């Protein structure tokens, strides 16, 4: 059943995906409202899917598919929070495709891939997943915002009449969305890494710093910190900030991909 609900959600997110592509070329109030409603409906299905999974006791914390589904849901929640504060659907341009992709993979009719290692502390693991995923979602939004910032900056500099009627919110609003999610994401990311280390230590007795997963996670965290620092210290934004955000995002993807190479964080079909 949870899979069925998830597929309903996927159908709704598809509308969001289409919106993401259309919004880049034209502005339509009606369409952004449709996308918003579709996304909300998708979230309801998604929530039902996750809740059912959890309540039925089938939630497998070490399942990749469950993880993807959860990450997608958290990212959508972020999107909704931003909409509630800033009344803009434009971050959807970046968030929707990612959410759609994650949900799509999660909704595949395959046996979930599981972490091979045996984990003794379920509570720590759950905390680790929640925290790190929130961090990821925040990073995603921040990355999206920096891209939108570039886009809006370019439009304003191009000085075309369309710069007045673009679908994008004001430059400073985009900047704030990016900066706030960056600030919000940082503690989650940090705590997520700490809890992850705790899980690793309790499982293996030590943390292997040469493991690709650990290395890439650390790299991602360092870039994240550099982003927060340069922004706080010298107000980096625009091109330079987008460059850093892209770097952090790629590092995050690499850290995720490292699951397939890491000895301690490996998933395998059960």
């Amino acid at each position, binding site marked *: 059943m949870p899979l069925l609900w998830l597929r309903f959600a996927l159908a709704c997110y598809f509308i969001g995906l289409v919106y993401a592509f259309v919004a880049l070329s034209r502005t339509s109030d009606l369409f952004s409202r449709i996308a918003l409603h579709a996304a909300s409906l998708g979230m309801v299905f998604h929530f039902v899917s996750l809740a059912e999974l959890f309540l039925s006791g089938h939630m497998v914390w070490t399942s990749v598919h469950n993880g993807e589904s959860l990450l997608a849901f958290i990212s959508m929640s972020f999107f909704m929070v931003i909409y509630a504060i800033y009344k803009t659907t434009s971050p959807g341009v970046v968030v929707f495709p990612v959410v759609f992709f994650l949900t799509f993979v999660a909704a595949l009719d395959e046996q979930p891939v599981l972490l091979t290692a045996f984990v003794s502390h379920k509570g720590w693991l759950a905390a680790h997943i929640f925290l790190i995923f929130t961090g990821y979602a925040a990073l995603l939004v921040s990355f999206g915002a920096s891209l939108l910032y570039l886009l*809006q*900056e370019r439009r*304003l*500099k191009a*000085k*075309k*009449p*369309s*710069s*007045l*009627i*673009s679908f994008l*919110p*004001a*430059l*400073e*609003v985009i900047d704030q969305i990016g900066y706030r999610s960056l600030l919000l994401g940082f503690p989650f990311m940090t705590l997520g890494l700490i809890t992850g280390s705790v899980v690793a230590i309790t499982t293996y007795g030590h943390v292997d710093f040469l493991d690709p997963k650990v290395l890439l996670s650390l790299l991602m965290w360092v870039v994240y910190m550099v982003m927060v620092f340069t922004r706080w210290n*010298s*107000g*980096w*934004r*625009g*091109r*330079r900030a987008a460059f850093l955000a892209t770097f952090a995002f790629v590092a995050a993807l690499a850290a995720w991909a490292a699951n397939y190479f890491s000895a301690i964080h490996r998933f395998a079909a059960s």
Partner: protein
Amino acid sequence: MRYQLIGVNHKSAPLEVRERLAIPESRLPDTCRELTAYPGIEEGMVISTCNRVEVITHTVNGSADLRGFLHSHFHLKPEEVDPHLYEFREKDAVRHIFRVASSLDSMVVGEAQILGQVKEAYATARAVGAVRGQLDQLFSRAFAVAKRVRTETEVGSSSVSIASVAVELAKKIFGDLHGKTVFIVGAGKMSELAARHLMAHGCASIFVANRTYERAIGLAQKFNGQAIKFDDLYSTCDRADIVITSTGAPHAIFRREHGEQFLARRKNRPMFFIDIAVPRDVAPEMGKLDGIFTYDVDDLQQAVAGHVADRRQEAERAEAIIASEVEKFEARAHTLDVVPTIVSLQDHLETIRQAEIDRVRGRMGQLTPEQEIAIEALTRGIINKVMHTPITTLKTAAKEAEATTVVDVVRRLFNLQVKAKDAQQKDAQPVSKKDKDEVGSRR
């Protein structure tokens, strides 16, 4: 109707060209004098705003070398400016002036400032005697037409001025304008207006810098703002989010290095420069910096292009009004065209009468006062009766297009002038003493 006009506007010429042709307010009177002293020009005036520079003249023979005037006055090579010039004559010149005054030719169609600017240019030229009868008629009519367009159409309503476009752009950059700081550099009406708009949308504080510190104080007081000495401009400017600059400086006062300083001190928070000065105050290089957004007069025009579409319909109605006004003006001008002919006809017959009376006096000797009065009345009566029909015909013809033909015929019949072509060209001038003498001597 020997109006001739040459100029550039925001559509025909880029800002770089308009900058070179712009005439500062202080030099306008001299330029007008120079213009009227130029060969072939009777009356002349110059309109120089940030969007247009136009030279309007009434010429001696319908064709003066206005391009030559521009080249010599601005020391320009023809190839630099000629591709951007437009030239109108007679009816077309009248239509153009009507359109300009009615703000149909403006960057922001319907904005009200242009009428004021034309009025000022007119007053300046009039004060130095460069505008007399012909241009006077043209412009008083143009002002009336502008008023008619304004009251009868919606072109001017909810006017999207540069100021409100500036506000919209500021909102695209800063979102909410509450708490933002505005810096006015160079106290002028335009920048004052823009600042007023920005304040109305929430901008909190304001700085004013001006070469003349007293003017800065005056303007700052109006806004409850703070006047800044011009020397402190660069050290305080980074405190402003929005800078409206409109100084008369011949060169850019904000250059790339200034922008870099501002951004460093502002921790890269964006700045918005609204540059309404011509020549520009902000070097284009500075606008390329990340975080600095510069809109000059031309850019603002592009930004408002979207709004103009809404008014197209109203503008069409306004164009119809202008077309009918141009017809009326032309008809009226023709009426004026026949007046000199009538006057010289009267003069001609009067001279004949006087000569005949003198001849009769010579033969009859001294006349009694009663006889004098009788002869006077008799001859005058005959002449008036004879003249009645030609004059009525002339006046009627004047209202139609055939005026020149009739004028021609009358002149030939009474031998008022030998060459018909010359007659056509000269008859529009007020009759001078010289003309009368010519008529008299040809008997």
